[in-house]
């Protein structure tokens, strides 16, 4: 393992500079940036979970956009503005271009475009080196750790807020619902579906044709749906062509009847 690490380090040191004239970007920075760009393409190709792909992508876009606009920004505020604006503009223009390619706007074409654009920016800005000093980071943390703690507390409150709002959605999605629908039909039978959420009860499917006397009444159907819902598929036999009315009635007579009207034959 130690030997492997040594080999990797030796390779790292020996990585030749790209054959670009007057490149002053440190080799390591160039490799890190290129690796980030490629990692995003790999993440896109592999269909990585959004929880991993999103931060990776946002960091990659921010790093590339920052490199692109670096020479135009006089301060941090302007830099953030230019990064955001340039990224949006580039996305829209690339999307318009992709529309006229046979591939269109797909995951593959977006991935390929990202590779082209990010590599292009890297080549364009090959003379621009990023200076990050540990001392600066330490000093920044030293000066801002108190406000950082407040920020962390605020972030925790915000995460709680999102959870609370989502709890409302989950609760709302579990409200009682009973849907009755047609699946298929032929001359002999009609297949119907019952979708229920947070509904419990015994039901019966009743079918009749053109107001004639009752033709079919199913055996009791127990619906016992929790918040995740329950789906039941039932066959309703029919014995003549014409217009059929199929009821889903509650056995205990509660007011929750559903009705389908189907033409058979």
């Amino acid at each position: 393992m130690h030997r492997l690490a040594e080999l990797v380090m030796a390779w790292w040191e020996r990585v030749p500079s790209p054959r670009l004239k007057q490149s002053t970007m440190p080799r390591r920075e160039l490799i890190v940036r290129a690796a980030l760009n490629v990692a995003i393409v790999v993440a896109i190709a592999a269909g990585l979970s959004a929880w991993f792909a999103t931060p990776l992508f946002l960091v990659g876009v921010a790093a590339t956009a920052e490199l692109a606009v670096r020479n135009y920004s006089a301060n941090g505020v302007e830099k953030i503005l230019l990064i955001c604006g340039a990224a949006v503009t580039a996305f829209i223009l690339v999307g318009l271009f992709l529309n006229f390619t046979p591939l269109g706007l797909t995951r593959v074409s977006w991935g390929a475009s990202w590779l082209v654009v990010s590599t292009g920016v890297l080549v364009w800005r090959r003379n621009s080196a990023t200076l990050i000093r540990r001392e600066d980071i330490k000093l920044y943390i030293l000066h801002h750790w108190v406000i950082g703690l407040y920020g962390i507390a605020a972030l925790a409150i915000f995460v709680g807020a999102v959870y609370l709002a989502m709890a409302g959605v989950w609760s709302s999605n579990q409200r009682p619902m009973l849907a009755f629908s047609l699946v298929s039909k032929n001359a002999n039978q009609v297949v119907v579906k019952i979708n229920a959420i947070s509904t419990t009860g015994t039901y019966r499917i009743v079918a009749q044709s053109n107001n004639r006397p009752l033709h079919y009444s199913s055996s009791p159907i127990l619906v016992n749906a929790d918040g995740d819902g329950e789906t039941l598929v039932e066959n309703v036999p029919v014995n003549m062509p014409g217009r059929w009315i199929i009821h889903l009635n509650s056995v205990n007579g509660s007011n929750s009847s559903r009705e389908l009207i189907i033409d058979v034959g």
Partner: protein
Amino acid sequence: MPGSGPGSQQLESYAAAPDSSGDGHGSPKRNRSLTHWAGLVILLTAVGTLGQAWISYEGRTAGASSPALFYLTLSLIYAPSAALILSGKLSDNAKVGFALYMSLAVHATRFLQYPSDFGYHDELVHQAIAAAIDQTGHLFHPLNTILPEASYYPGMEIFTTGLQHMTGMSLHSAGWVMLAIADAITVLAIIQLMRRITGNMNVACLAALIYMCNQELLNFNSQFSYASLALPLALFCIYVFAMRDESAKLRGLIPAMAVFVALEATHHITSLAVVILLWAWNRATQVTGRRVPQLYVFFALSILVVAVWTWFARAYVITYIQAAVSSAADSVYKLLNGGSSRKLFATPAGYKTPEWEVIVSFGSVLLILFILVPAGLYAIRRWRLVGAVGLVLTLTALAYPVVPFGHLTDNSSEIADRSAVFIFGGVAYVVSIWWFRQLRTQRSERRSLSNQNRLRPTVALVLGLTFCFVGGGIIGDSDWAYTPGSYMVIADNRSIDQLALAAGSWEAANIKQGSRVVSDRDNDLVSQAYAGLHVVTAEADHVDGGAVSNLLLRYLAPSDIDTICADHVQYLISDVRLSTSLPELGIYIDQGEYLDGTRTAPPAVADLTKFDQVPGAERIYDNGAIRIYNLKGLTCTG
């Protein structure tokens, strides 16, 4: 901007004098105290968002929410940050940071109301366009039949679906990332532009705070809609033009032109507004005698871009703009001739805005008008000093009365609301320079006052801003429109509930995409956005909208079968809850529908379910509220 950047003579006159307490540096003890104040503001803002989440939770679980709590929690986000920014104790970067943090928090409150799905009309239209791009891989087709011209302006959808493809996020999440980025661009662009114009960060931050009082902030501009990205792009376009390298001549225009093309691909009216702004700016330079290099060329090129794109989208966009302008002009004409005006603070279904909200909204309009008089006079008197951009912004600010008075008629209210995002740019500029100029000229007087008295103007300013911020929210929309809650008839976010979404989900699984469907306004949106169905509309299908609306809203007549056959209607989605109330938004389907403008009662259940009795029409879905009819079996003569 050229000729008006920091350091230019005319703008220095507005720059606040350096404040000894405004550099953010002081004794260590004072800095510690400031840090804790800033920390407290950060926490209060977060608590405000938590309050909004509670409102969202209560709305969904209990079906009700308190408007007072809604605006109180919003104020908890806005007011402390505004106070800190205007206190003069923060460094420039910290001021911008807090303005950005607060603005993002305000936008986050909109996310917290609808954290899992889009809930508004335009959001669902754009969701459908984004879904179409995702499925076909191409732009512009299939046409969105509810808002046809929006298909030709897919910039926002390009960005969002691009994010979606590259990160694996859902469309909803990608949409909110897009909105957060758009919000950041808006705030930073306003601050940077105002800073370049006035040369003062205090003025720039105050302008951003004033801008946030416009009624579209909480309403239209925080929705997943093309205008929400177009406005930031417009501001960014102007900024990129302003910061260009003038020595590069025409080559220096390339970045601004690239942004303008992206803007044109995003929204028609906003790009047109930028063209008008460039024209006005160019004219103003002629008045002030200070020419801006390449401005005329940029103006000419932008006209070319707009002309080419409008020609491309001519089939729908020209009709759309024409219809909006002519109906607004018509209703204003009728109003001036003693015709009926819009019923303010009430919906056709009978909802009435609480009295305190009416007072606050009127009060905020009066306050803005009251301040605009001296501020506008100040700017007009010194028009030679404010420069060309200042002149344009001042004239824009003077158009402010259009915003409140536009609400007097139904058709002009939408135009008034949309124009507020531009007019408030001028209001923000005029009021902020006036405020700081007043402070500066009175500085010597204030020096003799105690600390308590020194604070008074800032406290009054923060209270006034918060008052206008809440007033803007109230003017923007009814309070129920901001939050989830119990079902309401044709109320977009309050109509698209679990039952409507369940029907949409069933349609997606069981009805072939592109099938032609007729329904009410909100179930139309659901069937288009979730199931990819083709909603039959007068705008896109060139059919008789009134006849199509008869299928849902009127008693059965033989002509209905003719309409179904002629317009190839395959499915009808009927929500029997429509029979419980008049529509909150005034129409069940669209303007020109059956009994539009004369209706006094909701349609009867028998009318909504009339196809139960029609041979060949099958009821294939029923969830108690929503019934879906398959009309393909109807016999068409000829």
